[in-house]
């Protein structure tokens, strides 16, 4: 995540979040060169605005020469104003008469200008070598407010303290008022950080990993959605083209026949009826597509009336019997006793039709058994077949949109049938479940409360 962590340039420190305010204790001039040169090199290379306030043991000219040895186009960057290297005396002159609040506000203003000019943020260092003992208390109070000021801003601040000028108590003050301290002992830099900071950094690291995982998961889900959409578009165009093709052929055929000689009325009527059927087929497909957008944008509207589910299922099954017979399925309906409830007639007919159409496709010419029962406050509609069944891994998936057991195979349709069944059941406050074992048939059960909740 590019914006969260910045390279500090100092190997012992590694990457830092914006808002970091830390200190270093140096002994020799070399210590400063070792830390500040790579610190600013990293800032410059990562498009940050930099401010280096120098102090003994070296001045602005020394600093510029040393950084110039590491950053080849430093002059150009200075000219552009990406980095300012200021001697502490000049800096002190600018700030000495100002209150701590003004100085802090000065940092924030500088940060705002850096962002306005297109930099990622502000990286700065100050040196306290010039501090007189009498100023110490005020200065430490100022430092204590810096951490709070920097927090939430795109600022990284490194304060340099000369080890030789700090007394024991001072070291404690300094460490206390920074997030962590960098010290050099026997040549190696070492990081001294508070327990709280350690925990926070670990937390940040963990959140980073989690965020990356989430991004990966979301990306995979989006890619999958795109793949399903593309597959759907290909299926949809095939499905829509087929009735358009037959409609056009019936009409073309009639026209050609008429051009030769007038057709007998009965023959013409039969052929026109076939053309009309294709219009109905197209209308049903278009309605299915409309159902998808209706259901996706907040549920299917229902027009309920008091009706007998048994009667409805007997009628709808009768209308599907021809389709099932062609598929080699023998249908039995067990719905003698009236089961009365308040439901949307057209939608429930669609449920029966879709479940039976699904059986015609997948029941492998076995027996299909339809049952309606009253179960206390609910009604159940069961459609059972003895076909090939559905593998457990696919059982939830069959209710998804645009899913077909075998795309482009014997299925046909948009792969929306069972999805619409679920949408209709849920719109009634009910549910649909599937019980199946591969090779041992499938049972779809729709449960509907008899009164809308």
């Amino acid at each position, binding site marked *: 995540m590019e914006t969260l962590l910045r390279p500090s340039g100092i190997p012992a420190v590694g990457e830092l979040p914006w808002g970091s305010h830390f200190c270093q204790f140096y002994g020799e001039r070399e210590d400063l060169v070792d830390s500040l040169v790579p610190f600013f090199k990293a800032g410059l290379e990562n498009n940050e605005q930099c401010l280096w306030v120098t102090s003994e043991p070296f001045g602005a000219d020394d600093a510029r020469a040393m950084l110039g040895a590491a950053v080849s186009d430093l002059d150009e960057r200075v000219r552009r104003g990406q980095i300012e290297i200021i001697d502490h005396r000049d800096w002190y002159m600018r700030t000495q008469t100002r209150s701590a609040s003004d100085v802090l506000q000065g940092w924030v203003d500088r940060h705002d200008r850096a962002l306005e000019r297109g930099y990622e943020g502000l990286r700065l260092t100050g040196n306290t070598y010039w501090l007189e003992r009498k100023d110490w208390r005020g200065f430490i109070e100022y430092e204590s407010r810096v951490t709070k000021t920097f927090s939430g801003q795109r600022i990284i601040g490194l304060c340099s303290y000369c080890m030789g000028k700090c007394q024991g108590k001072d070291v404690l003050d300094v460490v206390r008022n920074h997030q962590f301290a960098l010290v050099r002992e026997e040549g190696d830099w070492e990081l001294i950080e508070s327990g709280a900071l350690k925990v926070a950094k670990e937390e940040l690291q963990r959140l980073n990993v989690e965020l990356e995982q989430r991004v990966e998961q979301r990306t995979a889900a989006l890619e999958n959605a795109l793949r399903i959409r593309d597959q759907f578009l*290909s299926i949809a*165009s*095939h499905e829509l*083209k*087929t*009735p*358009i*093709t*037959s409609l*056009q*052929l*019936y009409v*073309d*055929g009639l026209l*050609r*026949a008429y051009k*030769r000689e007038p057709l007998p009325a009965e023959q013409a009527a039969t*052929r026109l009826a*076939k053309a009309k*059927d*294709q219009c109905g*087929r197209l209308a049903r497909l278009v309605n299915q597509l409309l159902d998808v957008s209706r259901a996706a944008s907040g549920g299917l509207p229902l027009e309920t009336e008091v009706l007998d589910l048994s009667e409805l299922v007997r009628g709808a099954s009768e209308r599907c019997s021809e389709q099932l017979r062609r598929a080699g399925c023998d249908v039995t309906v067990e719905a003698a006793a009236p089961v009365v409830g308040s439901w949307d007639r057209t939608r429930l007919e669609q449920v029966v039709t879709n479940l039976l159409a699904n059986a015609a496709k997948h029941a492998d010419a076995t027996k299909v058994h339809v049952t309606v029962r009253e179960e206390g406050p609910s009604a159940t509609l069961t459609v059972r077949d003895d076909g090939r069944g559905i593998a457990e891994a696919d059982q939830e998936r069959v209710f998804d949109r645009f899913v077909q057991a075998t795309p*482009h*195979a*014997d*299925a046909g349709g948009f792969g929306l049938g069972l999805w619409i069944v679920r949408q209709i059941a849920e719109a009634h406050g009910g549910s649909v479940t599937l019980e199946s074992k591969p090779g041992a048939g499938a049972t779809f059960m729709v449960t509907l409360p008899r009164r809308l909740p």
Partner: protein
Amino acid sequence: VPVDQDQILLVEDDPDVRDALEEILEDEGYVVAVAENGLEAVKRLSAHEPPAVILLDLMMPVMDGYEFRRLQLADPRFATIPVIGISAGVLDDRIEAMQLTAAIKKPLDLKALLDAIRRCCRPVSRA
């Protein structure tokens, strides 16, 4: 052409498209046999005199047009029967290997289809 010999073998899974095409081709005076997928077409070829042309839908269940054509080309008895491909899908690079006489997209341009058929055989009669 003996009257009992099929002139056109129409291989199409959609019953309505199949029915409409059969009706038109018979109106035009052709003798038409139908099969609802590649496997049925293979069975039909093996049991009857070869037709003059095959109208082949490419996307079908059980055995699609691509697989049918592959089997047909591999069988010297049927390899020379010309095939006109019809498809509602995208005609992709697999088309090349199929060596089709013509490939026509759905919805069908009936004139183009009849022209392509006429190049393979003439109707025996006008119904």
